[in-house]
């Protein structure tokens, strides 16, 4: 007989870590919206799912005394999108979170699950990259903090070690304020991952002030730093040059959703539009 999937619900971080270590091929599960569809199709289905949604300390969005914002690993995408602080201070995140999937899906999916899944199209990754977020995690070797810029390694791959649990993402207070514009193309109006997306966010307190993140055009979500520099130097008049730079930064592939050539071209179109929109605002 094929072995059955062992589902466990953890009530504390310690318990989660222990449950994970107990069995080979364990996986942490938050909303399960990536994990479950994939487990069904793939040859290497997990043997155990460690559900972290019941861990109270991971279920909160907290504003720390420093002004940083901490989003627990069990917090739903919908809760993040609607959170007043997120909407007022970190609008890039609320914008990207609202674009993910569909309403029912956002009620179940988590932001941390979205980045741990490390898809090149992970919507919230665009915002977290622009906001210089940090991933808090803990594993058998103890806790550590991973800057979001070092978090994505490849499609489906993060810098988390085996058994390491992401506890939260933190967004620094210095990334607050400013404005953001998301250009996102998909094959239909809802419940569709981005064929290509560009997030432009302008953060008054940071350098570079302009932040450009690209989705679905490289092995991981990524920033287009040359475009950012151009925009910092010359403002909206650099729109075309920035678009060229962002297109050059893209490393798209052909797949069923779109060709590499189209994706690259759209990076330019979307960034130009975003610059125009923010410039006019």
């Amino acid at each position, binding site marked *: *007989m094929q072995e059955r999937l062992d589902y466990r619900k953890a009530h504390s971080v310690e318990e989660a870590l222990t449950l994970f270590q107990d069995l080979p091929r364990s996986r942490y599960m938050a909303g399960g919206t990536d994990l479950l569809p994939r487990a069904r199709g793939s040859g290497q289905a997990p043997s155990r799912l460690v559900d972290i949604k019941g861990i109270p300390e991971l279920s909160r969005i907290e504003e720390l005394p420093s002004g940083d914002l901490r989003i627990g690993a069990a917090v739903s995408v919908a809760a993040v999108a609607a959170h007043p602080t997120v909407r007022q201070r970190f609008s890039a995140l609320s914008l990207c979170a609202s674009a993910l999937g569909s309403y029912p899906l956002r009620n179940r999916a988590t932001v941390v699950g979205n980045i741990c899944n490390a898809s090149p199209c992970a919507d919230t990754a665009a915002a977290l990259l622009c906001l210089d977020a940090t991933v808090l995690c803990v594993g058998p070797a103890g806790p550590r903090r991973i800057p979001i810029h070092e978090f994505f390694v490849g499609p489906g791959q993060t810098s988390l070690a085996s058994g390491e649990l992401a506890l939260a993402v933190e967004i620094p207070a210095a990334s607050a304020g400013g404005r953001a514009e998301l250009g996102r*193309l998909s094959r*239909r*109006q*809802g419940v*569709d*991952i981005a064929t290509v997306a560009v997030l432009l966010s302008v953060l008054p307190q940071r350098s570079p002030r302009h932040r450009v993140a690209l989705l679905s055009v490289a092995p991981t979500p990524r920033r287009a730093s040359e475009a950012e520099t151009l925009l910092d130097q010359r403002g909206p008049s650099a729109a075309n040059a920035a678009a060229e730079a962002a297109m050059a930064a893209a490393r798209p592939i052909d797949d*069923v959703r779109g060709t590499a050539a*189209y994706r690259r071209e759209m990076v330019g*179109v979307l960034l130009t539009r975003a610059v125009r929109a923010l410039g006019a605002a």
Partner: protein
Amino acid sequence: MSQGRWVGRDVLRVDGLEKVTGAARYLADVKLPRMLYAQVVRSPHPHARVREVDVSRALSVAGVRAVATGRDFPFHVGIYLKDQTVFATDRVRFVGDPVAAVAAESPEAAREAAALVRVEYEPLPALFDVRQGILPDAPLVHPDLGKYQVVPWITPQAGTNICNHLKVRKGDYHAALKTAAHVVENTFVVPQVQHVPMEVHGSAARMDLSGKLEVLTSAQSPFTVRHLLCACFGLSHGDVRVMVPQVGGGFGGKAGINLEPIVTALAMRVPGRWVRLVLTRAEEFYAAVVRQGLVATLTTGVDRSGKVVAQRMHYLWDCGAYGGYGVNVVRAAGYTCGGAYEFPNVWGDSIGVYTNRPVGSAYRGFGMQEIHWALEQQMDMVAHEIGEDPIAFRLKNCLGPGKRTVTGQLLDEHSGRVDQCIQRVAQAFSEPLATRPGRLRGRGLACAVKAPAMPNDAASSVLLKFCEDGVLEVLVSGIDYGQGLRTVAAQFAAEALNLPIEQVRVRNLPDTDLSPYDWQTVASRQTWATGNAILRAAEKCKAQLFETASQVLGAPVERLALRDGQVVDTGGAGRVPITRLVMGYQFPDGHVIGGPVAAAAHHVPEGLLFLDPQTSQSAKPVAKWTFGAQGVEISVDPDTGHIQVDRVVACYDVGQVVNQGLILGQTYGGVVQGLGTGLMEELKLDLLTGKAQNANLVDYKIPTALDVPAALEASFVETPQKDGPMGARGIGEHTMIPTPAALANALYAACGIRIQEMPLTAEKVRAALREKRAKG
């Protein structure tokens, strides 16, 4: 709009409550006693010879009760052309072709055992393109084509990949083309798409120890399933019982016979046990059935007055690996090859070609959306070529009373009016289209026509019977998979017997042991066929009631009428409630007259004639035509190529609206399904491996509520159908036929680009715009 007490009104679905409360049970909800789970072993190759199938390791898995292979069941199956076996015998013809199946105590054991069935394949060159398939040196998908059983009106060509070829020859095409002032020729392509019903295919079977077979299946055609199972396994109709629970959508994909032979084969190996197979969504995409692909080449010759004088249509259908049902799509597309137009001189060829792609079958529209994608773009292109308005050009050439179809059939004043549908849509578009900054806007129109594609003897029968309390039970054997047949059946019965609708109960979970015969729920034929049968049966019930009542009231039958559950003497001699009549009337002295009131009736299309085998000419090849037109308004983002559909206007000549809510549901649903195939759907194969690249709902998209246009308008012309129930004709499929072509025409109007290959993805639009700009 003519309205009866019930027919023509907005009657709520009679099965709505069951469905919204979850009381309705579908196949996967049913846990049968001691049920075994089935898993199919499928070919990973698009084309290969099967050298050996070794099931020994599979049989050793704990919990496995049976493994069936092509060696055990080398029986042929197919509705019109028996070109498929239950399991592959000597070769596999597409990725997903069943090679064997396992029945086990748990789904896990079944999966594990299926993975252990060892099949030795010898790969053969695969064929993925119909244009190559008709070449003389193409690999043959069915070398035994000449040996298969086939109905007389399907014409497979032995020694080729052609599984059916219908020729339409009318007038003198070649001579007429020489007289044409302009000749326009274009090629159009439609890819294979999948039906994506909410409920995937599923079937279960049990053979009891006495040899009687029961089949429970999510299907559109229980009686046809029984008939074909009997033919396949050599069983008697008396020993096979097919039952259909609630069905969660079919769209043609559950027409004919599908998984039933597989579960039957397994059931025969484990007598006494139920064996159930429910496909995964992935299997649904590549291993159930798909809509056939099409490559259409049209040549149109017009004279100086803008009349088409010569029209050639060359349709190459991608039937995939097996043509069992799809061969009839080829035929229907042949005798409808000219669409909604009168072409005096016609050269038409509709050719079904085997490939090593997934199996083509029926899909809402039965070939019509595909040929209209070509025809309706062509009409616009010809109009532009001769500098005429596309709408005026259509009105000048369209069919109508006194005109003749491509098969020479003369239409009359009862045949429906496409001209009026076109004019309605044109009227809705009389205001100039408002501009929108940064967007290119345009409007397009396309017409539609379709006849039911069915054998000349396709029948529906019904049984009406009263309960003691005067409730009328209506037994119909069509499938209500959402289109609303049960409600419409209740309306016709209530109308004919002038009963409150609550007093009518439609019994409709067909069971071939107990239910009246019905050929299939396809071809937009149920409202029409079952409706007619109900009206006839109701008349018989009425006659029985009146005969008894006439004796009770002492009034002649001609003076009697039915009113709200009473038989009334219009001459004033009194009334008697039907509750006192439906089981027979008892007089005060105790003697009884009459008896339980019940009647059966049927509908069979009248006077259908075969097509001439050489020319397809026929005075009455089909029972009826339904015509319509749709117009769309779109906004195109020129930088991204994205098409936003702002408004769709649809108009159909349905003869008689039977249910206002349901007909809007059919129209809106059809339009949205049409937008899906027009804008985003395509089952993509990897041409190296033959595997579907998007056999899941992440990569294969269909529209959601968010893609529904802001404005969706429907209206109906009602030219009564002579043989329709109260004048009604079919509409279910027609609503998705013209949508993609209307979109393509709107795209041309908006930005001067033509895309002849469905779907109209943003990427194609963007590329065409760039090409256009490059040309200057």
